[in-house]
């Protein structure tokens, strides 16, 4: 179980990456922490001509504190967030979710940018970042563009990257002091891929109320105006305001026909509400 023989480059800046990945004549793969790509390379599911290691780029390993958000460089790791080496602006949401991603040894190399670009529907970041309302910044030969995380993911294993484009940062809004969040995932064992994820954010100061059904077969289902679904702000017991039937209808309307799948997804969101603030 060894990879094909590929060439390797480690550019010093983003421009150096862009110049390499725009070449359509060969298969070029970006390598960050390699915790998803590594296994696929070992199994020869991916057979690149060139691997571009982006972890040498200082800019991608930095965090920028802006007025109402922080820009987390694409190569910041799960354990950087778990250990609070990145200051938390989400009232504990990101550090707690980070601590539940795979295993510690994986978190020490796996990156936030790599995870959402890999676009595995069952992965954690895509769901919690969608709930929090994070965006990504992409840079390519035609400049910079920004997308909501849930729009960045197109489907299973497919991110909206144009030729030559690279994710440079994940931008996380600073939540208000009254913000409440929740995250629940159904796994058969610790560290396993989730079979259902529920996540939500209620941030009254910023007038945000979002809910997410994650670990579908494709991109997460994001309800951006979720007041009717998960109840109004201010209720102490959040789960009381949860409308299970509406949730069930919603995911059925979005193509989830299997009643068992629907049941565990609805349950996941309700438990996220019940266990608000914990993982």
């Amino acid at each position, binding site marked *: 179980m*060894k990879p*094909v*023989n590929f*060439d*390797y*480059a480690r*550019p*010093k800046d983003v421009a150096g990456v862009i110049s*390499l990945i725009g070449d359509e004549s060969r*298969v070029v793969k970006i*390598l*960050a922490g390699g*915790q998803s*790509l*590594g*296994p*696929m390379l*070992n*199994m*020869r*599911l*991916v057979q690149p*001509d060139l*691997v571009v290691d982006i*972890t*040498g780029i200082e800019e*991608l390993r*930095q965090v920028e504190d802006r007025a109402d958000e922080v820009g987390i460089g694409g*190569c*910041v*790791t799960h*354990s950087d967030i778990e*250990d*609070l*080496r*990145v200051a938390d602006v989400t009232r504990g949401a990101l550090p707690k979710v980070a601590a539940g991603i795979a*295993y*510690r*040894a*994986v978190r*020490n*190399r*796996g990156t936030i940018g790599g995870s959402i670009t*890999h*676009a595995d*529907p*069952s992965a954690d970041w895509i769901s919690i970042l969608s709930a929090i309302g994070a965006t990504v910044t992409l840079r390519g030969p035609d400049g910079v563009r920004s997308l909501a995380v849930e729009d960045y993911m*197109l489907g*299973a*294993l*497919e991110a909206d990257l144009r030729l030559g484009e690279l994710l440079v940062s994940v931008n996380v809004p600073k939540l208000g002091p009254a913000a409440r969040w929740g995250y629940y995932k159904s796994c058969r*064992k*610790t560290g396993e*891929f989730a079979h259902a994820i529920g996540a939500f954010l209620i941030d009254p100061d910023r007038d945000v109320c979002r809910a997410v059904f994650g670990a579908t*077969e*494709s*991109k997460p289902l994001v309800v951006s105006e979720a007041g009717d679904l998960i109840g109004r702000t201010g209720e102490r017991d959040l789960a009381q305001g949860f409308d299970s039937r509406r949730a069930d209808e919603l995911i059925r309307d*979005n193509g989830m*026909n*299997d009643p068992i799948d629907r049941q565990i997804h609805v349950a996941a969101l309700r438990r996220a509400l019940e266990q608000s603030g914990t993982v």
Partner: protein
Amino acid sequence: MVQITINDRQVSGECEPRTHLADFLREAENLTGTHLGCEHGVCGACTVLVDGVPTRSCITFAHACEGARVTTIEGLDEDEIAAELRTALSKEHGLQCGYCTPGMVVSARDIVLRMEAPSEHDIRVALSGNLCRCTGYVGIVRAVQSVIEARRARGIAAVPGGGRDRLGPAGSGHAGAVQENKRERAAPAEAAAATRAAQVSRDDNWRPQTTLEDSFTVSHPPEVVWDFFGRVEEVAACLPGASLQGAAEDGHVEGQIKVKVGPISAEFQGVADITRDETAKAGTIDGAGKDKRSNSATRGRIRYVVREGDRPGETLVELSIGYTLSGVLAQFSRSGLVQDVAGRLIAVFVQNLEARLNHEAGGGTKETAPESAALDAGSLMSSVVIGQIKQFFARLLGRR
């Protein structure tokens, strides 16, 4: 050439970019205490310290650790925590065959270092990235717990984060830029593959693994639609990524289809046989293809029936599309991911077919036919639905 500090020793050695850290340690440096249990990052047997924190050496490339500090089990001989763990693991019978043990010690050391007062459950969660098939974890958990309790009782506090103070993947950021080598890579077996494309064996008993059924109505008479299905190059043009080599002869055609999903690319080279039943207005396209690189193969069957629609001049097209995948790409339980590609592909095919038929039915010519949609963002909405249909059939057909 890669330079790494291994167990406090500066090492520089030649290794291919594809060599993972575990192989570099084991094969180049003869540090065989680092074990390989799965080579896909799940079992934890290969766990070593990189820049002081546990890392999977089987999915970390040696070149990505240029300039880093790596500590293997052999480098923990004199380590205080590791020594306490060794004593405790022996006392609690925390090892039997000993294969998972080096990785377990490395992870356990990190837990002892990092966690102040974990509960038994916390320890179990923290150890869950290391699989042991022999002990049932009982002795391992007890050993870790006893070492933590003893150290805290001696006034030694935990070090949050294991003392790491920089951002980014462990092992990264120590070395400068590296240019690509631009060497010639040995060509894969493409040329050979082309000469030995898959054959379709006519086998009436063959049953596809997954079958999707679909139907749609076009506003033109059945004869026109029937004619359209007879022009295989036009039907093929509706299949994203497909291209034909030459024209069909005696109902036989050769071609290829490129499929890309995320980092995985497959290019199936193959043949198709076409049979048509004029009286029943029904036809079958049997195709088979082999991926150039992965030895994966696919086989598919499209059946179509052309009927009169509800209203005069309309045609109802009934499609049944079945396929089977074999080889590396098929061999995962999370088939949702790989099968999703096929589902999406078929959804786009149907969409293109419908568009082209309506175009021609509406008087358009082949030359002015609409650009076939590719497998992209636009096709993904329907893929969710198709995926569910596919699951439904899988459930229906998959069980006896």
